[in-house]
Every structure is written in structure tokens, then in C-alpha cells.
């Protein structure tokens, strides 16, 4: 899995093709919108979403952990999709395998579990986080002085070419003072974003991250 390194406020950030950001200076892996337990939540209600989705998310996360060996995993909200179900236990077991890694969750609108559960799983919760030049939140909330990095949006970009071609891809969206990360979860949709001139759009094609050119 390759990625692309960009500079933001003097910090190097590595945007990975697996929809996660690695911040080498702080050895931090930043991930938004995992929506764990979503497929299981559907299954509990009689909707046959593939059960394999849950394992797939953990497998992808595990690969990232093995590859980057982070000291901290920073989760930008919507870690768990619904009220408690068996998938939380799978995740807690997974998290226990990385006892020396700090897991921090910026709570999102979907994170409605009993606070005790996060605590027991060794996950620190916070409404937002200021670190270095960055202001981490779940909902995008640009703020003077810091560069905001958020999730929630599940950004996607529509690319258009000659001969009326077009293409839709998940993306990273870096604006002048705020950034939105793609949703990590396998069973999540896309919301088309409308960048403004000067924004950096980095589209994800599965194996690669591409800088998109923008044009009015």
C-alpha cells in the first residue's frame, strides 16, 4: 500500500491508500469513521449485511498497525456504529493485542456506548484534541490558530474529463485551514464534496493516492 506525503503547517503527513494518515513526527496513526459493528447492527435487525465486513475492518487495521508500528492511534469519531453488539468485543480483543499503544477517541455522533466500555477497552475519550499545529475533531470545525483535521463527512470526489467521462472516488480533502479524512470503515458510503480553488484533493483508488487537479 503506497501513500503520498504532504506538508501541512510544517508537519509531514503521510496519506495512506488505506484511508488512514500517518504522522511520523508523533508516531501517530489517524483514522476517521470506522463504523465498526455496523454490519452486525444490521444483522441483528434481520438485514443480511455480510458478516465478513467486521473482520475485514479489523484485518485492515491490523495491517496498518503492523506496517507503521504507531505509538498512538487517534480515532476521529464514529468508531462504533450503533449500540453495543458482539463486534465491540472483537474490537476490544483486538485492541488488547496492542497494549503498549495509546488509543484515543474523539467522540463522534455515532459513539453512543456506555463510557465504561471505552474505559475498559483502554480507550481514552475526548471531545477534541489540540496537538502541535492541529486541532482534531469529529465534525469539521475550523478554528483560528490551528489546522483542523476532522472526519464525519465521508468525503468523495467526482472527477470529470473530456468526452464527458466522470469518476467517483473516496478522497482526502485539505483546505486552507481544515482537512477532512476519508471514512475508514468498509461498509460506509461517500458524500460528494465541493472543493474551492486552492484546496488539495487527494483521491484514493484502492492501491494509490492521487493528487487531483482542480479546475473551475
Amino acid at each position, binding site marked *: 500500500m503506497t501513500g503520498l506525503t504532504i506538508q501541512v503547517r510544517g508537519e509531514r503527513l503521510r496519506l495512506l491508500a488505506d484511508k488512514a494518515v500517518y504522522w511520523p513526527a508523533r508516531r501517530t496513526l489517524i483514522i476517521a469513521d470506522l463504523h465498526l459493528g455496523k454490519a*452486525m447492527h444490521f444483522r441483528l435487525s434481520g438485514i443480511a449485511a455480510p458478516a465478513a465486513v467486521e473482520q475485514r475492518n479489523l484485518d485492515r487495521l491490523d495491517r496498518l498497525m503492523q506496517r507503521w508500528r504507531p505509538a498512538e492511534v487517534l480515532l476521529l469519531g464514529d468508531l462504533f456504529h450503533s449500540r453495543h453488539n458482539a463486534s465491540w468485543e472483537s474490537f476490544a480483543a483486538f485492541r488488547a493485542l496492542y497494549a503498549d499503544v495509546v488509543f484515543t477517541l474523539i467522540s463522534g455522533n455515532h459513539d453512543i456506548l456506555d463510557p465504561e466500555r471505552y474505559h475498559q477497552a483502554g480507550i481514552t475519550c475526548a471531545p477534541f484534541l489540540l496537538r502541535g499545529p492541529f486541532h482534531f475533531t469529529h465534525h469539521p470545525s475550523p478554528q483560528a490558530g490551528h489546522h483542523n483535521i476532522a472526519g464525519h463527512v465521508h468525503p468523495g470526489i467526482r472527477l470529470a474529463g473530456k*468526452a464527458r467521462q466522470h469518476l467517483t472516488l473516496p478522497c482526502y480533502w485539505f483546505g486552507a485551514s481544515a482537512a477532512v479524512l476519508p471514512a475508514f470503515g468498509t461498509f460506509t*458510503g461517500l458524500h460528494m464534496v465541493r*472543493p474551492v480553488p486552492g484546496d488539495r484533493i487527494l483521491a484514493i483508488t484502492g492501491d494509490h493516492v*492521487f493528487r487531483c487537479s482542480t479546475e473551475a
Partner: protein
Amino acid sequence: MPTQKAPSDRTVTRQATQWFAAQGLKPQAFQRAAWQAYLAGRNGLLTAPTGTGKTYALLVPILLEELRATAMSRSPRGLRAIWIAPIRALTKEIEASAIRAITGLGLDWSVGVRTGDTTATAKRKQKERMPELLITTPESLHVLLAQKGSSALFADLRCLVADEWHELLGSKRAVLLELALSRLRTLAPTLKTWGISATIGNLEEAMDVLLGEEQAGQERIIIRGETKKRIEVRSVLPPDIRAFPWAGHAGVRSVEQVLPLLKESSSTLIFTNTRSFAERWYQRLLDVAPDLSGVIALHHGSLGRDLRDWVEEALHDHRLRAVICTSSLDLGVDFRPVETIVQVGGPKNVARFIQRAGRSGHQPGAVSRIHFVPTHAMELLEGAALRLAIDEQRVEQRMPYVRSFDVLCQYLVTLAVGDGFRQEEIHAEVLRTFSFRSMTMEEWHWVLGFITTGGPTLLAYDEFQKVQVEEGVYSVMDRGIALRHRLSIGTITSDSAIRVKFIGGGYIGSVEENFVSQLERGEVFWFAGRSLEFISIRNMEALVRKSDVTKGRVPSWMGGRIPLSSQLSAVLRRIVQRAAEGEEQDVEVRTLAPLLEKQRERSHIPYGNELLVEKMRSREGHHVFIYPFEGRAVHEGMAALLAYRIGLLTPISFSIAMNDYGFELLSDREIPIQAAFDSDLFSTAHLLHDIEASMNATEMARRRFREIAQIAGLVFKGFRSKAHPVRHLQASSHLFFEVFADMDPANLLLIQAREEVMTFQLEEARLRKALERIAGQHVVIKECKGSTPFCFPIMVDRLREKLTSEKLEERIKRMTAQLA
């Protein structure tokens, strides 16, 4: 005990004849034939157009059967007959006819209507005491099966009649009915099945589908009630063809020519192919002739039921001079015949056209006249094609849906929510339906697995719950699941429609979400023939107020385009051949002469043994147009196939457009068309593989999957009432498609989506035939400087498909993100 002999069929039939005579009527031959066949215990199919007494052809013998039986002993009350109507609007009328006949024959039957509109109280009463005759829809019949204790209701059922069966046949609603019938035949072993259908090309098959295997072996009969009617097609010719647009314009230019037709006649129906065309015609007619205000009306599927009911009634009572409508008025609604029929745009289908023509001139021997208004110049040819097709009685078939596993999944849950089922018994029943006769044991087990374990799962702690199996009985225990299921029974899926309401209250109809999302506050749009100002959107409702502004956008609805049928395509090719030969027997070809001359000058008009290819360059890129005249559906598959095969020669990306006459490949680089033709481009070898391989098929399957996911219960449309919130249970079918394709490729619903694309959308069988025909044709490649009359309507089409053989990265480099 009285040892009375049962009255003979002759005796009871005499009663019916007397009742007819009392109203000054005489049973028609086909009615007598139906009575006789029914009383002899046969099953069958009756063909008869609307408004000819088809209801009494089957209603009367059902009542006579009761007369015959009650003479022996009084049987207990309860459900005797089910009458399936495809639309709710039809039920009222059937009810009225039934009550007349029941009273006339002196029976004490009660008649009940049960549809989505029936109140909960009325439904409860029905369940306590079923009416003898139940008029309902396939969906409501399934909802009934989803009730606890419903099995007992059908014990004395003698007959099920499927009215307007041809309408159901080409849809999954027919599969719903087939499955319900397979259950009823067990619950009521002496059940007879009858269908009533308009004339279609595959009546035998239509009967097989309805009767299933069980009754197919028994004596069955097709009774033909239609009499051949003379139909005259008159094209509305533009006064100056040179000034007539080359591409679609809704035909509103011809309004002024249609106006006199409308004024001369006491009643007119104007059929358009799409809802937005209907809106535009209505608007334009009022612009040109404001005095028509109040005596013309609009009728289409997106308008609110109340509005449509009012229009139907007003039409029935001759309070309206004209109604502008879509296929929404094609079936049912047995209003009095109208004087004039106008068809705007090619009807694409001979059967439908004949049916519409039949709305006029009901007197025996009268000529049905139908005026055809082309929406662009070349479409005029379709007028000539229609005339020829009607002359030769080339009526289309309705292809039944088979192996619709989405419907089967839904049906099994329906039974599980109701009285529960044993799988061996239901398996045997399902196998006897037409739709599932080829189902394998593996497939059956897959479906059972889908509803009980939620498909394959490797999880240690899976919490899937839907249908549970206890002591061999499959049933649903969870009330929430049962409730959600009952509310989503059916196969009619709608796009996320936004209800349009006046701010002061009053429902007008619904438009697509996509359209509303483009509206700005204060913007004016035309809908339901009114100028409306958009205010805001709240809970899937668009709030509007009346506006005086006369200009505004008209919403468009998806799925408006019907492809040219294979029958009509074949005839159209003969008309093009006539044009190529300069034969001028058709007034349409004569009128088009200047345009055809231009086509000849700039390019060529293909003879029957030729395939025309046009090449040109524009600012948009390199265009190649190919004209097989096979209809939109076949062109879609053919274009994707060709694009894929050319892509094998060189990395290239295309965008594809098509109409019923031909298709276009557009690329930002030179298309090696000559080389492609030299390399067996139209071969049928590896056809399936090549279509599958083209990205296009996946995209189409994804779209098909929308409906499948909804029917199979994966995507839940939610409740309108806020009493049952569905927290975090919304995911798009698109998302399901992705994860299934990725993690569960053997998913039967996924496979079904691909099969449906092949069978119904690309019409693979037809495509194959077309390719074989083309392989024997001489290819004529013309380099053109500017657009030709043939290519122009395709070129300006904005609905496009895409296909590429380039690496994603390569494409992205040449694309740009769209900015706000």
C-alpha cells in the same frame, strides 16, 4: 336430507342470460364460452380489451357456480373468490360490477376491497369475516399471508382471477402472484385460476406462468374475446420539415397543429412517453389556448392519488375536453371511449399503441384513429413503421421474470411472519411455479440460509436474527422485524421520492430527490400543471406555494425511456430501406425528403444489407456513430461490447450515448474504427464474457441491485410515521453491492442482478440475433464534416455511459475535480 339433484350448467346459465336480458343485453360469444369453460372446471386465460364486458365473462360463472352449489346445500360463508387487480383505481369499478351481478342473480355474497388504501378497521373486520369475493392486489394478498391465522381463510376458495394479467406479467409482481398462488393451491385444492389479458405475442406462455405446473397439465383454454378493429395511424406532419428540430423537444412545437384536433372533438387523450413531456404539453396548451383552462387536465404517476382520481372521474363523466397523460392511463379506468387519441413521441411498442388506439371508437366496426406527433424529425419514420406493424399485427411479447430470488426471499419471510412454514412443503410448492421451476437444491438452501443465518458467516459470535427454525417450523419471533417486513412487502420500489406539499397543507405529488436538491429557495418550477415556488425541504417533503411566474423548470423522472421493441425495430428497418431506395409510398418518408436528402449529401442512408458508420471530430473529441436500428436496449449492450473490444486493441476511454436508431462512441483520442472492423468486432464469440468484462455491465448490475436489495429486505425505505424510528439502519443498495461483490461473490442476489441485466436490460438474446444479422451486412464508413440528421439526436443526448480500458491512474491524470 333433500335428495335434490344439482341444477345443470344449462339451468344456471339461463339465469345469467335472463339477467342480461333484463338489462337489454345479450351475452357475447366469448362470454358464453368463458362461462361454459369455467363451469366445466377448467382453468384458462381470456383475452379481451378494456370496456368489452370481460369482467362479466368471469364474474358471472363464479356466481353461477355458487348458485349450482347452494341448490344442494347451504355452504358456510367465507372467501370463495379472489379478484386480483393490478392497480387500486380499478378495484372500485370491479366492486360496482360485482355488486350489480350479485344482486341481479339473487345471491347474498358480500364484496370486499383490500388494498394499501383500506383502513386498518376494515381489514380487521375482513379478517373476522371474509367477504365471499375479495378484490385485491398481489401485494395486499401477500400482506394477508403475513397475518397469523391467515391460512384458514382460504379453505373454501374456489377461484382466483388475475385481471390485466399482461400488465403484471412483465414485472416481479407476477412472481409475487405466482408464489401466492402456489400456496393457495395447497390451502384450497380445488382452486381454479383464470387470467384476463390484452393481446400479447406470447399468450400461451402467459397462461403457463399463471397456472404453474400444477394446473398446466389439466385442461386449460385460451378464450379470445377481441375482435379485430381497424386502426388508422395519422402522423401530424410539420408544416415545414426544414424548420423542424433534429433532436427531441417534447414535440411541443406541434401544439398548434394538435389544437384543432382537440377543438373538433368532444374528448381527447394525449399520451406522452414521459411525465415531464406531459407537464410541458399541459403548460404549452394553456399558453396557446387559455380558454382550455378548466377543461383540460394532467394525469401521470407522480401526481397524488386524489388528483388522479378526480381526473379519472371527470373523464368518465365527460367533464373534461382533454387529458394529457402517460402510461398511467393505459390500464384500468374503464371510462367511456374518447373521440380522439394523440400519441406524442414514438410509442416504441405496437401492443401499447394498439391498446391506446382502442380507447377511441368503441362502436362495432368503427375505425380507431390515432394521431402520432413526432418529437424530432427522424422520429416521423416511426409513424410509418407503426402503420406497417399494425397492418401486419406484429404484437410484442411480455417476458416473464424467472428466478427472482429477491421475491422468493421476501415471500418466505412473509410466510414466516404469518403462520410459519415447513421448508419441504413450501419447496415443493415453489418448484411448481413457472418462475422457480429451474431452481436447484443449492439455490433453495441459499435462500433459506439468507433468511435464517444471514448468508455465510465465519464469525464466532454472530447475532443475525430474522427467521428462526423451531421443530422444523420457520417463523419470525421478533415483533420489530415482523413489523418492518409487513411494511415493505411488494416489489414496486420507488426512488427516494420527495413529497411535494403546499405550505398550508395539501399533497400534490412526488418528484425525485435529485430534482429538489437542485432547487434554490424561491425558485419556481412546474409540477402537476401548476407554477410552484419552492420554499424548503423538511422530512422528505418539499414545501411550496403557488406562484404567478409562468416560466420555470420542469422536473424529470428517471426511467421514462422505453426501448423500441424488437417487432417495431424490424419494421422500422424496412421503412429506412424504403427511404434509401427513394420509395415514397409513406407520407412520412415523403415529408422527410429534404432531410433525407441532407443525410444522403453529408453521409449515407443505409440499405437493408448495409450498416452505416459515421465518423467525425468536434470540440468534444472523436465521435463514431453506428446505426443498427435495433432499439435503445440492444444498442446499449452493443456499444459497451464494441467499446470493450476496441479497448482490447488500444488503451482508450469512451463515453457512450444511444437512441433507438443507433449509438455513439465518443473519446478524447482517435478511435481505430477501421482496425476494429477488420478484427471481427461484431462476433458473437465470447459474447457473455465480453459484456461482463465491460465495466458497463457491472454498473448496470449495480443499478439493478437497487430494486433487488429493496425487495429482498436489505434496504429498508423507512416509515413515513415517526413512531418507528429506524436508527442507524440505512445503507444504500450501492454499498451492499460493493461489499457483496467484494466479500460474498456467490451471493445469489448479486448473480440475479447480473442475470437481469443480461435478460431484461441488454436483452442478450436479441443482442445476439442483432449481431448475427450485422455480421452479414456490408459496413459503410463515412467521414462527416458536421452532424447529420441521423447522428444529431444522439450527439446531444446527455445521459451517458462510460467505458474504459485505460489504467485508472492514466485517466485521473487527464481529469479534473469539479469545484463548487
